[in-house]
């Protein structure tokens, strides 16, 4: 690990230099106050002053739909056209943690080449962030990352401290060595320490994350689940925006006017109605409550046994996304008894016809 310093004004020169090496992805403004990772040609579009993108950066490595095989009856040809050299710039610690979780998942037992190839060719250039009211990464201990990046930029106003996390990261620095300074003055270090302290204080939300695995178990039959089920819109949004969700479906689509089929992979969400349906009509999780419970137990409890850590990285996306306030915060607050009705109180309202 090496830390170097870069003046803020050097950023665009740096991006200019590295963008020649690979496709550059970075956060850009999407809606009124929302952001998305996009391929960037014009650096002025990059908006580093963002909290979270709508979709996590896993979409860059595993697109919502990509082709796995081009197949005829006699030959199945793997298709890796979604894999290319990419640089993802501006990614926050929570999302880097999300990728680390995905790394474990996709390597467990049987390796998934479609993810791993894509991941190998992607360079991760992290960027520091400032929490808003939905950020829970301090609770999930993912507000600081020690691995999972090639470079990490901590924004200290007029300069950046840049952590070099890999040889590939170091190679990027060496492309334009003049932009960086090896010497970091004591006042710079002071500035950094102050920034960390200030940021730690800026978190306004927390959850009892450590207790969650046990609470999932202890409150498995709690009536709160049924209530959540009543409120859940079953729209799949919480799942689609989660940095650690990875479920998919496979679709075989013949090509019109050609002899072959494209066998593609597309995202799926366990919160959707048909997720656990099998041929013949049986659906193992017809109830919304059962699907929600699966999502939360899988993420917060089951992951620990298989991959050593729960899968929530505290990014706050489910909080910002769910229109009916079913999210990690409200579920956690309900289960630990801090606020049993935290998730939603609309259903109890009188309905006048």
């Amino acid at each position, binding site marked *: 690990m090496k830390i170097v310093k870069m003046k803020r004004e050097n950023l665009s020169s740096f991006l200019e230099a590295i963008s020649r090496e690979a496709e550059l992805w970075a956060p850009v403004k999407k809606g009124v106050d929302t952001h998305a990772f996009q391929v960037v040609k014009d650096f002025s579009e990059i908006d580093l002053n963002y909290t979270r993108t709508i979709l996590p950066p896993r979409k860059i490595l595993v697109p919502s739909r990509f082709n796995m095989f081009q197949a005829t009856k006699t030959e199945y040809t793997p298709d890796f056209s979604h894999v290319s050299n990419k640089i993802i710039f501006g990614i926050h610690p929570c999302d880097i943690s999300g990728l680390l979780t995905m790394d474990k998942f996709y390597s467990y037992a049987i390796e998934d080449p479609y993810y791993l190839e894509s991941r190998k060719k992607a360079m991760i250039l992290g960027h520091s962030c400032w929490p808003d009211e939905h950020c829970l990464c301090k609770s999930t201990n993912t507000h600081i990352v020690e691995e999972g990046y090639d470079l990490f930029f901590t924004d200290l106003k007029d300069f950046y401290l840049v952590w070099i996390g890999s040889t590939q990261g170091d190679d990027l620095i060496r492309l334009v060595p003049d932009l960086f300074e090896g010497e970091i003055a004591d006042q710079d270090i002071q500035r950094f320490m102050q920034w960390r302290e200030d940021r730690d204080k800026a978190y306004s939300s927390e959850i009892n994350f450590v207790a969650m695995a046990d609470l999932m178990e202890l409150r498995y039959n709690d009536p709160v689940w049924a209530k959540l089920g009543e409120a859940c*819109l079953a729209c799949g*949004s919480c799942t689609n925006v989660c940095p650690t969700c990875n479920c998919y479906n496979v*679709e075989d689509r013949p090509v019109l006017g050609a002899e072959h089929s494209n066998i593609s992979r597309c995202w799926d969400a366990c919160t959707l109605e048909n997720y656990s349906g099998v041929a013949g009509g049986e659906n193992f999780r017809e109830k919304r409550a059962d699907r929600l419970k699966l999502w939360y137990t899988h993420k917060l409890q089951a992951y620990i046994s298989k991959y050593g850590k729960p899968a929530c990285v505290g990014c706050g996306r489910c909080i910002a*996304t769910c229109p009916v306030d079913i999210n990690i915060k409200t579920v956690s607050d309900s289960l630990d008894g801090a606020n049993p009705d935290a998730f939603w109180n609309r259903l109890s309202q009188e309905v006048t016809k």
Partner: protein
Amino acid sequence: MSDNNKLKIGIYELTGCAGDALLILDCEMELLDIFNAVDIQSFLMAKSDNIDGDLDVALVEGSVSTEREIEELKDIRKRSSIVVAFGLCATVGGIQARFSEEEWTQNLKEVYGDTEMTHTKAVHSKPIDAYINVDFYLPGCPVGKDQFLNFFTRVVQGAPPESYPVPVCVTCKYNENDCLLNKGIPCLGPLTADGCGSVCPNHDVPCYGCWGPAEGANLTSEYHLLQEKGFDIEAIKKRMSNYSGSKFQEFFEQFKNKESK
């Protein structure tokens, strides 16, 4: 076109805007492949030499709105191995199927007066499954191009796609749109079957529900949510009923049942 190995297809239009049939003609770049892949026996909008014989697949667009259409539809069913409800009107009856029988009779009278039609008698608009068994549903107003091409290419292979219904919110998230519901705009995305590619929210316009109700949609919850955001009950109900056709009645029954619990 009398290649016996090709699937015999018929495309029929009952009452509707003809948008689903037009959608096929809107597959400009794929059109010649479509006509080559199958034996299109009947397609009034596109050709004159139409034959009413036995079919492998019949795509039926539009709602059943006249007595004559009931007879035509039953005849199509008899002649076809697979009947597909093609588009919103055929799947749920379309916007015209939203009236109750009484409202419809009243409104018909207001528009056409006491004139008795001589060519056929109008009937209360209904989806085609009100009269015949339907093998496959392709909703949409109109059906999506991808949705149709996917269905079509699969059918040509002898395997209609597995239906995997999801709400508009799914694609809307893929497209990384601002959630309009969270902005307080009455968007029907969570209630509506996907297939359009979330086209309205992509343009900052709320989903109007034109693919019809999504399977497993939680009407009750959205209703409460909109109520909380300040919309009045009548307005919410109307908005929800606009595109759900005759299925709205059932849809709403569910809701009432939940209410009474």
